[in-house]
């Protein structure tokens, strides 16, 4: 049992508790509050009035896949040889020794969403993972969280340049629609076997079955407003679920977003206009989403923006009018909801995973340090260990 005493606890679901205690047992939060009894604890950390938040969650990264400081040998982000690769699993490309994992722990990030790149129309399945350990299979929190899809400039740029389809947004949509149609027909054949002999296995349709059955969402890379509209159109045609990532132009179609109530991973907000389709990137998107009650979290798309800036992204958003508590939710609880793992992580509540960050002060303040990061009840980073 591990206890933390005398901390301001920002729970995300139950308000903020001043001068509280947190009790951790068997990797879970056992109790939190002013009266939580720490007497059975073997070790008690004295918070000295510092702040505890849930572990931060970066819902869209390529950590371990697009490795820091390694160059081409450490890049396994896009299987850019075929625009339809739904049978790939990101789990097979993650290097847990990527130095970024250590930087994430130092930055208070305890859970990440890891997705294949956006070069393909269907890129494979993504997963949610704890930033701990050396074995990917032991770190996985949920796999799959969804099927990676992408519209807009990336797929058409990758393949159009090779004189292959997709070369246009029409081609993008047609390939996505074609794959979903094929998988729908495939499921129909599985459900109504007519000719056993003629049945051939189709690995792509097989991989899309959980999407068609509504078990997992499409996680769709979209920037431009019309790409957002297109993906909603296609998903409705097939009755499949989706969540949207980047959503740079989302505020331009806010009424549609609001009506459809689709969860959005907004970002990387600190990046520049690296493409025409994201030229209008700024903090207007999350501020409008907050005002309109469109569910969203922040993403860094690490390494596009380095994951250690996740907290900074939230701080900057407050300068544009996002309230502090909403900004913090957008990198904890809302991120957990985006990934579909909010039953386990994203807030400080009894029964949830013991993923916590101890901050030297107000987490939103630029100069505040992460003093300690805890994942599943284990201290995975303590400031001072690496300071020079």
């Amino acid at each position: 049992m591990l206890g933390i005493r005398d901390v301001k606890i920002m729970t995300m679901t139950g308000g903020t508790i001043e001068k509280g205690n947190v009790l951790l047992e068997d990797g879970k939060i056992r109790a939190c509050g002013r009266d939580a009894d720490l007497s059975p604890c073997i070790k008690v950390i004295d918070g000295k009035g510092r702040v505890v938040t849930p572990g931060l969650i970066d819902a869209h990264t390529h950590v371990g896949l697009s490795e820091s400081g390694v160059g081409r040998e450490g890049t396994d982000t896009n299987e850019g040889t075929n625009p339809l690769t739904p049978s790939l699993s990101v789990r097979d490309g993650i290097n847990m020794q990527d130095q970024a994992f250590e930087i994430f722990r130092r930055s208070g990030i305890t859970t990440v969403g890891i997705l294949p790149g956006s070069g393909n129309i269907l890129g494979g399945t993504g997963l949610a993972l704890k930033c701990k350990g050396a074995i990917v299979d032991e770190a996985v929190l949920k796999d799959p969280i969804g099927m990676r899809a992408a519209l807009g400039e990336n797929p058409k740029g990758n393949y159009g340049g090779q004189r292959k389809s997709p070369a246009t947004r029409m081609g993008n949509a047609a390939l996505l629609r074609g794959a979903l149609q094929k998988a729908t027909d495939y499921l129909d054949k599985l459900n109504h076997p007519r000719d056993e002999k003629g049945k051939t296995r189709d690995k792509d349709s097989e991989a899309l079955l959980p999407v068609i059955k509504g078990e997992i969402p499409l996680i769709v890379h979209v920037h431009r407003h019309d790409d957002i509209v297109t993906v909603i159109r296609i998903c409705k045609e097939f009755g499949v679920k989706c969540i949207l990532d980047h959503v740079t132009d989302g505020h331009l179609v806010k009424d549609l977003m609001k009506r459809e109530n689709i969860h959005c991973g907004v970002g990387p907000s600190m990046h520049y206009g690296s493409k025409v389709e994201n030229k209008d990137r700024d903090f207007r998107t999350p501020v409008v989403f907050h005002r309109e009650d469109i569910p969203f979290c922040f993403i860094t798309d690490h390494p596009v923006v380095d994951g250690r800036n996740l907290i900074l992204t939230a701080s900057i958003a407050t300068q544009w009018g996002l309230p502090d508590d909403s900004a913090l939710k957008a990198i904890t609880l809302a991120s957990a909801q985006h990934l579909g793992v909010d039953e386990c992580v994203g807030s400080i509540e009894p029964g949830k995973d013991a993923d916590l960050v101890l901050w030297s002060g107000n987490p939103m303040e630029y100069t505040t340090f992460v003093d300690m990061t805890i994942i599943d009840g284990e201290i995975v980073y303590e400031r001072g260990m690496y300071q020079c």
Partner: protein
Amino acid sequence: MLVVKGAKIYPGTGAVLENGVMIIDDQGKIREIGQNQSVGEADQFLDFTGKVIIPGLIDAHTHVGMWGDGEGRSGYDGNESVRPITGEVRALDAVNPRQISFAGAREGGITTIQILPGSGNPIGGLGFACKTQGTVIDDMVVKHPTGLKGATGENPKRAHGESQKQAPATRMAVASMIREYFKDAQIYGDKKKKAEEEGKPFDKDLNLESGLMVLKKEIPFRVHAHRHDDIVTVIRICEEFGIEYTIEHCTDGHLIAEYLGKKNVTAMVGPGLSAASKVETKDITDQNPAILARHGVNVCLMTDHPFLNCRYFLQYAAIAHKHGLSFEDTLRAITINPARALGIEDRVGSLEVGKDADFVVLNGEPFSYKGSIARTYIEGQLVWEREAY
């Protein structure tokens, strides 16, 4: 006359002015600055009570206006990497003042920038300094040229050796080509001088003219170097030719800080907040500016826009401050240090009498998230204002 009053002013040089007063003339110059100025016949008063004013920020290394920001490939003009030695190209000829990056710079409180060619070539071309507001780049220029861009390490190797199967393919060739360039420029300079003395006609070589300016110490050599050994190589070559230089990026500087301090190096450190996108940047740390400053290196922070979006220059400075760069050193690293390193400190870099009235109005202290940028002024003119989304 414009009178700015009420704010706490950090002039950048000299003491902090609580409830400061700044009087700006019609040419956009600071006529007076202090605490007890009599303010009689002003045309306009700006009362910034409760706000904080700092000098307009100077981002000493950017590619603002030339990297296709929001424009895609058609707006990309960063590297003339068809051959490795391009001393004749000028960033000035490739900058689009209407690109969104200029608006981003103003939003980020940046009033002056240096724009340099990219790092694909060992000799990349001439850079310049300009204000961040305007429609005609020539009217925005503060100084041209401010330096000759050079590059070492992975970028020139990749742009040439790997992509085009031509030299340089190794760090050895990068160094050798830089050396040969300056040797050629020396010989060229001698020939030119002789021709002038003899009154003979002489064919100008615009590529070598740039090198000659460096050799004559009219401009420094500004060299992209991340890895520690690349930094050391740059110093070695520059000392061989007795030329002035700045180290651009200086990512591994913290590993050789004592050596750099001994050499009185000026380092443009950045882009901040970055990922380790290459092998040569694997040891990137937010502590680099603090460690360099502690060892006596003249530190200027920079965004290398677009690699760190220049909108977030002040946040980068705050993070450098968090990791040990003192408040004063941090403020200097984004104002007066780069002004001096660019040779434009007579006009910008601090709020002093006679200088341009380039300043930023903050809602709180500069390195706090409560100190968001409210307004940016260039030469007394409002060029950006925060509006509610």
